[in-house]
């Protein structure tokens, strides 16, 4: 990829982060300089900071451990791909754990002052006029995590080595904010803080062709402030009720209608089978509805299905 033009290069030392614009079609490259360092990561629309990265939608669409080929999505109601991970030489990333904070180190370990991702991210985005309240849940590059059989999260030893890297191509103009994770008393970065190298590079025409959609928005429900009934950003902290408010729900009222489903005796016996299996409800109508919609999800739904039949 030597034909990529270098736009910016910066080494993040331990205890620091960097807010860096990455324009549509540019690539953010983060590289390990030491033996395994987690990079927490925030991202904002460069032209509208209210659109920012969302772990929840990313987790929903790509699972608990996004890696090469997956995308980082912005929060509802914007919900656009911000970046695609076009290269990931390790493949262990986390979006379950929230960023570490000053509170966490004080509450759990008794440190009144300790490097922590929230404060580092907050200091990084201050360069662009954003506040500590604007820091959001992070994408945690290289953080090697798991979920035990009780549903509890745990942190494993970092696998990244010097020279490992991730590359993300921007789908629109973004303020990207990586930081050197401040956790030196978890195994997140193998109990040691190390620097990380950042580069911003121009994607080649071939890379733009491969990864970028022609339009930055593909769906009507990837909303913008122009779609909002109230689009101004508040400038006061106190919340006061709007006395003129009258609810205008998107779909309301919800009206139900009966559908009669004819079944032969043999077909009806299938209801009994599903009832005996469990996981479909008790009433005949519940079982038919659950089975029908489960079929529809398997047949028509785009993306991960998020259900196991009969459980």
């Amino acid at each position: 990829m030597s034909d990529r033009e270098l736009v910016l290069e910066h080494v993040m030392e331990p205890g620091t982060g960097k807010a860096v614009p990455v324009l549509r079609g540019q690539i953010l490259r983060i590289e390990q300089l030491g033996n395994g360092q987690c990079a927490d990561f925030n991202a904002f629309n460069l032209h509208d900071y209210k659109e920012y990265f969302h772990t929840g939608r990313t987790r929903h669409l790509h699972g608990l451990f996004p890696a090469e080929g997956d995308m980082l999505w912005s929060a509802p109601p914007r919900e656009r791909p911000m970046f695609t991970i076009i290269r990931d030489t390790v493949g262990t990333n986390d979006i379950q754990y929230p960023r570490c904070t000053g509170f966490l180190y004080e509450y759990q370990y008794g440190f009144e002052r300790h490097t922590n991702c929230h404060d580092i991210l907050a200091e990084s985005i201050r360069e662009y006029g954003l506040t500590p309240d604007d820091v959001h849940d992070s994408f945690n590059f290289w953080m090697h995590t798991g979920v035990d059989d009780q549903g509890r999260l745990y942190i494993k030893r970092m696998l990244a080595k010097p020279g490992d890297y991730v590359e993300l191509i921007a789908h629109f103009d973004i303020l990207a904010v990586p930081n050197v994770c401040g956790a030196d008393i978890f195994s997140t970065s193998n109990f040691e803080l190390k620097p990380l190298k950042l580069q911003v590079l121009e994607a080649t025409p071939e890379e733009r062709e491969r990864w970028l959609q022609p339009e930055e928005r593909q769906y009507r429900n990837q909303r913008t402030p122009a779609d909002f009934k109230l689009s101004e950003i508040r400038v006061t902290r106190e919340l006061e009720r709007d006395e003129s408010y009258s609810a205008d729900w998107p779909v309301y009222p919800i009206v139900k209608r009966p559908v009669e489903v004819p079944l032969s005796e043999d077909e009806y016996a299938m209801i009994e089978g599903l009832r005996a299996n469990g996981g479909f409800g008790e009433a005949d109508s519940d079982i038919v509805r659950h089975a029908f919609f489960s079929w529809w999800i398997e047949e028509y739904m785009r993306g991960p299905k998020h259900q196991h039949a009969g459980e």
Partner: protein
Amino acid sequence: MSERTVTIEINQQQEQMLDRLVAEGELGEDHGEVVRAGFLRFCEEHSELLERGAGDE
């Protein structure tokens, strides 16, 4: 063939989905036929659930 009828309730959004399936023309000509067809396909594709259920009895 004796018939039994199971009545399910759907809302206007689910009705749109059934309308699309009816328009595709593959599963049936009305909502009831489409739901029946989808239900049967689910049972066919997950026959292990029916067998497991039968085995539990």
